[in-house]
């Protein structure tokens, strides 16, 4: 009994130490360590709001509320600026939090009110209003194809070059298991963008799925599983653009140990793996234990017989699966 208690206490201590160590390493460090972790709003002045919360002021910058879901920004950062509320606003607000793009083009605000409800508002820096209207209205000539992975990797192209040969893509849910990349219309400094479509790399060809051609809302992500109908697309034919795409893909694959993301290679490797694990292994076990059971004495005979019967059952199920998938 003493040994059990001693072992029990030792294990509890080890368990607690392990938990503490894991928690200590997992806890994010909220202390300010570097300016790179924060957005730069161009001024360290306190943020203030109009009474209706539709306008935000920070130093010389004015922000107006807008439909934040119409655009996408890659990252949001915490802000260093303080917030100053008017006495009337202080009576209403219980808590608030803010994040912004790195250069302060967009601020995302979350308000919690004492009455129990909350509100999320997106604010656009007035200096970006013109570019925002241009990317929404599709007035820029160039689009960018996003091949970014661990580092930025874009192919800038004239949007007309994407519109090669018009075609129809069927079995879209299967095709979009191949590589697809966002085609975006971004502001000059790249802080936010609108997704206009997707570039699909399939069977040696590149296809551009234009959202406007298919009635898909821009900036939406095209989920293949939701679409069973054929999709209109453009097969890219411009040689210069094809070369740029090919070069960008090489960098993309090179950063991520490329062949792991090649769907055809992964399919073949996984098929071989499944044959070895669910085919060869049970077959080997079946043969081995069949031979052993013929030579074994009574107690072992029953045991080995049970094993080779289970292995045979597994082999036959695997064969059934393979036949069903092939047919």
């Amino acid at each position, binding site marked *: 009994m003493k040994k059990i208690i001693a072992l029990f206490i030792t294990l509890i201590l080890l368990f607690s130490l392990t938990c503490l160590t894991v928690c200590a390493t997992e806890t994010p460090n909220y202390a300010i360590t570097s300016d790179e972790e924060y957005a730069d709003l161009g001024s360290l002045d306190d943020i203030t709001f109009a009474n209706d919360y539709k306008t935000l002021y920070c130093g010389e910058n004015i922000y107006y509320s807008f439909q934040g879901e119409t655009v996408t920004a890659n990252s949001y950062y915490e802000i260093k600026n303080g917030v100053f509320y008017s006495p009337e606003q202080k009576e209403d607000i219980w808590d608030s939090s803010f994040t912004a793009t790195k250069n302060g083009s967009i601020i995302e605000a979350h308000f919690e009110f004492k009455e129990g409800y909350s509100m999320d508002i997106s604010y656009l820096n007035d200096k970006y209003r013109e570019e925002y209207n241009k990317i929404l209205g599709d007035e820029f000539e160039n689009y960018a194809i996003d091949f970014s992975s661990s580092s930025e990797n874009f192919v800038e192209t004239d949007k007309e070059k994407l519109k090669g040969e018009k075609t129809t893509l069927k*079995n879209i849910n*299967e095709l979009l*298991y191949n590589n697809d990349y966002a085609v975006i219309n971004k502001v000059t400094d790249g802080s936010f963008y609108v997704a206009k479509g997707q570039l699909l790399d399939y069977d040696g060809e590149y296809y551009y799925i234009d959202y406007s051609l298919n009635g898909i809302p821009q900036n939406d992500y095209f989920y293949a599983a939701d679409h069973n109908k054929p999709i209109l697309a453009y097969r890219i034919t411009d040689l210069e653009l094809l070369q740029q795409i090919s070069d960008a893909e090489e960098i993309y694959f090179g950063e991520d140990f490329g062949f792991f993301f090649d769907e055809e290679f992964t*399919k073949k490797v*996984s098929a071989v793996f499944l044959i070895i694990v669910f085919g060869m292994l049970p077959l080997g076990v079946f043969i081995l234990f069949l031979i052993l059971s013929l030579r074994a004495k009574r107690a072992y005979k029953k045991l080995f017989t049970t*094993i080779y019967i289970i292995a045979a*059952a*597994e082999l036959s*199920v695997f064969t*059934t699966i393979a036949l069903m998938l092939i047919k």
Partner: protein
Amino acid sequence: MLRELLKYDFRAVLKYWWLAAVSSVLLSVVGGFCISVFRQTSIGEVNVPEVIIVCAVLLFVLVVIGICAFILLSEILIFVRFYKNFFSDEGYLTFTLPVKQSQLLNSKLIMSSVTNILTLSVFVLDIIIMLAISFFDEIFTKSFFKQVMTVIRELIEQVDIYVIIYILEALALLLIAVIFSYLFMYACITFASMITKKAKLITAIGIYYGASSVLSFGIMIFNIFGTSSIESSIALLPENGQKMIVAVILLGIVFFAAMLAALIYALEYWMLDRKLNLA
């Protein structure tokens, strides 16, 4: 004779287990009240003194440690019973009993599986008690029961033959996984007893961690490489075909797991029968 073996095995384990189970249930009651304090603090309707909040936090930490300790203790009791009954001085008596080796091993397996299920049941009961106490005002109302009944009715409507098959296969897989995990540990303990005379338990723990690391690595490789081909092939089938093939695949996995469990059972049996030397 198996019944007699089971009787003594359960007696040895449950002697201490029931105390720990009752303690964990009592702790869960305390935990429920602690969560109530946290709820009142977050809602803000009642002004809870800071001292009470601090006490509640400390108590809750103890509750969590206590419940984890109960689960740990039940596992320890199972393995200590196996070790003492086979590899200590008691082992001389055990292996001279007029029973088959397979019955000795089966008795341990049944005892460990049943104790595991009981431990899991007590753990679930603990969670239910904590939730019932902390959300007392929301759970024991007509509207909550109506919501629960609606959810159950909707779930039942969605049940078809394939869902039942999946559930049965999942339960079978779970049972096999439990048996496999205990056989794995028993095999490590037996192997350690074979290769060393001193510090058998420490050696067993070391072998267990080494072997389970290798197993985890194999499972990780399987998860990376083993599923891509099947997923894309299944996606091309019509919906009914997909359900049937998923059911057949699960059956294949059940048989595969059973084969692995049977292999390790054979290994353990062979080690106990041929290789064990208690001298």
